[in-house]
């Protein structure tokens, strides 16, 4: 009988590491190709359609639009994961940010207090701060009572989404909306202007700026150092006198603040009003992107655009080949599974033993 044993690797050469990554991606293509074949779809044609967004300028611009909320969520999550705080609360924070943004818009429509040019800057700040408070709740529960953060953040997703959906069909329903479940439209001053000649709205700048800030925090600041110590070894942080509560609360305030802005970017950038279920799971896609990009803020920019492209590609598949959008989900999931498994082989070498 042979036995498989795993030994931790001390080092791995760049070539080997790249080869493992490449093999993981190819395997993802291969396995989803098998699924295509089993469902009587030509895999080559399917892949061509899935990636058409990267060859066609107008589809590419649409992909970037999708990438903005993914990017904001993934950046925030990457910071939380660096502190080993496994938040899955991006989706709920998107809805919470959307709720806050809509409440500000409706309030200003009624009272007309904030001057139009100042409205967006103030909204950005208020949405960020309110979402931060929402995000600190699970951090405090974890730091003070050791409540598992995966569960609390996941549960809070449902809370936010359900409240948002209630508001849309209840108190915030548009009286002039012919009975459709949505809020009144955001006025022009509450929308992100488009970048000329594209469909991309200017909230992309928030995403890019956030990437630089997160990169800066992690690599240059004292706080970033504390995050790394807490994330790598909690007992060491305690021994060094670093406050766990302070670190995870700050990390989650930033993380949830960014996801809240993601909600604002969807409403103020694309939809223009609050709608039920307005996020197609960007909060969860953000988790995948954060891990696939190795929690690196700069790589996350490109990873988000890639996944934005996949979402658009999925819709192309749907319209041109009549496939369900679920195909993209399957492909995404396979990418994640294979890449994460690849990580394992980067860290361990395998020995066959008799």
């Amino acid at each position: 009988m042979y036995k498989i044993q795993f030994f931790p690797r001390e080092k791995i050469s760049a070539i080997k590491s790249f080869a493992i990554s490449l093999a993981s991606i190819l395997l993802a293509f291969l396995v989803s190709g098998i699924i295509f074949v089993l469902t009587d779809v030509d895999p080559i044609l399917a892949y061509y359609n899935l990636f058409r967004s990267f060859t066609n300028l107008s589809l590419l611009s649409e992909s970037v639009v999708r990438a903005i909320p993914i990017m904001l969520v993934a950046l925030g999550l990457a910071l939380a994961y660096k502190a080993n705080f496994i938040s899955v609360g991006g989706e709920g924070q998107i809805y919470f940010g959307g709720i806050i943004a809509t409440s500000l818009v409706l309030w200003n429509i009624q009272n007309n207090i904030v001057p139009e040019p100042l409205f967006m800057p103030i909204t950005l700040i208020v949405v960020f701060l309110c979402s931060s408070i929402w995000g600190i709740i699970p951090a405090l529960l974890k730091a003070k009572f050791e409540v598992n953060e995966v569960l609390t953040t996941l549960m809070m997703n449902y809370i936010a989404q359900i409240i948002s959906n209630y508001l849309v069909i209840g108190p915030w329903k548009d009286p002039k909306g012919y009975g459709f479940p949505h809020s009144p439209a955001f006025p022009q001053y509450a929308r992100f202007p488009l970048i000329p000649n594209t469909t991309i709205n200017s909230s992309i700048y928030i995403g890019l700026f956030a990437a630089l800030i997160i990169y800066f925090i992690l690599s240059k600041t004292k706080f970033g150092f504390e995050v790394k110590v807490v994330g790598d070894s909690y007992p060491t942080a305690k021994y060094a006198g670093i406050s766990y509560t302070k670190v995870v609360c700050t990390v989650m305030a930033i993380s949830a603040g960014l996801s809240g802005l993601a909600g604002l970017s969807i409403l103020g950038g694309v939809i223009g009003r609050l709608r039920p279920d307005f996020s197609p799971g960007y909060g969860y896609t953000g988790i995948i992107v954060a891990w696939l990009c190795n929690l690196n803020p700069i790589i996350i920019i490109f990873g988000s655009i890639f996944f934005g492209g996949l979402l658009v590609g999925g819709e192309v598949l749907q319209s041109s080949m009549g496939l369900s959008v679920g195909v993209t989900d399957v492909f995404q999931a396979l990418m994640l599974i294979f890449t994460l498994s690849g990580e394992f082989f980067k860290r361990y070498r395998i020995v066959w033993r008799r």
Partner: protein
Amino acid sequence: METNIVEMIDIVKTFPGVVANDHVNFSLKAGEIHALLGENGAGKTTLMNILYGIYRMDSGKIKVDGKEVQIRSPRDAIKLGIGMVHQNFKLIPAHTVTENVILGSEGNRFIIDVEKAAKEIGSLAANFGLNVDPLAEVWKLSMGERQRVEILKLLYRNVRVMIFDEPTTVLTPQEKRELLLSLREMCSKGKSIIFITHKLDEVFEISDRVTVLRRGKNVATKVTRETSKVELANLMIGRPVIFEYVKNPINPSGAALKVENIRVLDEDGNLKLKDVSFNVRFGEIVGVAGVAGNGQRELAEAITGLRKVCSGKVYVREKDLTNLPPKKFFENGVLFIPEERLGVGTAPNLSVAENLILKTYDREPFSNSILLNHKVIEKFAENLVKDFEILCPSVKVPVKFLSGGNLQKVVLARELGSPVGGDGHVIVAMYPTRGLDVGATEYVRKLLLKMRDEGNAIIFFSEDLDEILSLSDRIFVMFEGKIVGEILSHEADIEKIGLMMAGVMAS
């Protein structure tokens, strides 16, 4: 009586960096109780884990009933009639005694006759004087009763050779007496017993023969009634002293650390320090001897701010720091070399440089109010690496790739090379040379002596009595949460310390 039921010949087992068993020979006669005596880390449990199939030996032979056997897993061991009761019980709390006992020995039957099994277990228990209700759920049982369930597991599987790993540590004195009685009972009914311990008393209370291990080697096997506590203590601790250090005369001054009547709980709420008081002066080294688990960890954490005291006071330089956060202790010059170098003393995936500023990253010149100054940090790290002779390819490699000795140097460099607290530090070191090779051990010991001569106060914990005798000016002996002895090193008597450590006598 004279036949060897188990023979272990020339057993070698190495772990990365440590030789746990170095050509050990051990034999067990049918019907005897054989004590395996040694300090912590002497290799007792490793040797028995090899016999029980948990570890694979690197080389050596095991014979059972005179025939050479291969033991690859506990299942193999049990087939050969060898079973082990571990220090930490392996029971399922929500299940009954019977269910726990029969678990894994149901064979291929689909339906289990629990009632029949319960009856069998009941009569087994009665037969061997192991008082426990077969239908009770395990979570309701005391530690002593749980241990009896573990023993019943072995008896139910018809084991002939029973290994007990430090079985009395979790027991009350009453339960301990009962256990020793039933061990005699089992012996008289044909079982052979190996009894791992570091307590001299128990050796004499229960065993027929005793094998002493020291630092992975077996130093002697004696018939118990032909030996004495003093002889065994000497064998266990080992003479002569390996390292002789030239020590300058002691020149103490001022109270560096003063502890008054502190009481401290562990995580489970057990009282681990019972009214401990002492002081350490600048310019002296105090060595704390004791078997691990007698409150050393709690004491070290209490005097470095990592653990709250429930009552009592901790003064550093006559300043009351009781229950202040660890950072305050550090700022007042309390430096701590913890037991776990990797995972407490250092963060494994952070670089050497990052680990060297772990406690000073938030002050000038390493950072301003927001930013780290990587250039200054690297320069500082490179200097420390040179001063403390740390072997590493660069200050940017993660510390997890460093050897034990170099890792300990990183911790020492950070603590001793940190610019804090003014003159004279209080250095608290837990097992500073444990697991290090000869060269690194010598380096650490010389460094501690040098720090003492420079006027620092040092309190260190060790299981190595040679180390304590050769470094300390004063020696404390800890036993069950108390300092049971305080001895000046020039009046120290290794036998007496050994006995105090084993709880046999107090000064």
